[in-house]
């Protein structure tokens, strides 16, 4: 059994299977991507479920987007998945499962985990896109195996 650190004294009541805690899965993905500012999982209705880093005492938090900003980003990604689910998906013959948005200072990569969930990587300019894509695929596989 695994006791998530955030539970403190209540940890003994968690009864979570080993290594299926959402925060830990996101933390592992975050640590494997150089230049990653944040990893999150969210619902297709635009609600953020979990993010890493998230703890106030985590030094890595300084590089992550503000909570309110992230909520807006998640909502926009949800909209983009909706838009891409139209003609673009019909033309492809399958639903668009991955969205990439790049700018001068970094970018976003969102990957559909299930019809209801997606994961999101927010990266800085130094991140290797191929690595981010590979880790997003791995994270999606891990999340779908652990929670779906």
């Amino acid at each position, binding site marked *: 059994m695994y006791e998530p650190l955030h539970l403190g004294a209540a940890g003994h009541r968690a*009864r979570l299977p080993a290594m299926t805690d*959402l925060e830990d899965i996101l933390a592992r993905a975050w640590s494997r991507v150089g230049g990653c500012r944040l990893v999150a999982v969210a619902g297709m209705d635009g609600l953020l*479920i979990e993010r890493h880093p998230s703890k106030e005492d985590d030094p890595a938090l300084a590089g992550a987007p503000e909570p309110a900003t992230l909520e807006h980003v998640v909502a926009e990604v949800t909209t983009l998945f909706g838009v891409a689910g139209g003609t673009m998906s019909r033309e492809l013959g399958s639903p668009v499962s991955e969205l990439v948005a790049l700018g001068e200072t970094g970018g976003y990569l969102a990957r559909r985990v299930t019809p209801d969930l997606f994961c999101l990587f927010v990266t800085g300019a130094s991140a290797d896109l191929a690595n981010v894509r590979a880790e997003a695929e791995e994270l999606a596989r891990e999340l779908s195996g652990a929670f779906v």
Partner: protein
Amino acid sequence: MGAATDPSRLVDDARAVRGVVAAAVVGVDGEVVAAAGEGAALLERMQRTATNALAAAEAFASLLDAVEDDGFGPEGGREADGDDGGAVGEEEGARAATPSGQGATHLTVLYQDVNPLLFEPLPGGDRLLVLAVESAADIGRARFHLKRLRAG
């Protein structure tokens, strides 16, 4: 007895989710079966809101039945919403459990000034799991874990 059917365990497991500040299992008659949380006032507010919501659901269901008996209206959804003495409430999902346990069951969220409340009908239709979360940013996480808790 699985987590989904043992009220005390359900409350404990719900409380273990980060951002959940209080949890309670409430019967359709408003009786608190099990509860744990930060402060009696919050638990009291949860029970009061749940009781009001259930009463509203029952009244609404009766109204729908009357409309259907008259040959008007679609087949019955029975929706529940709550009121908490002037707090700002907004329903997100709808169709909570009814006393008869009819209809699909869905999560309902009341956004309020403090500690948004989540209502999740439990299997069987005779009890509700009520959660209070720290802020609106915790709703997604709590809702995600609720699905797993319901599955037991």
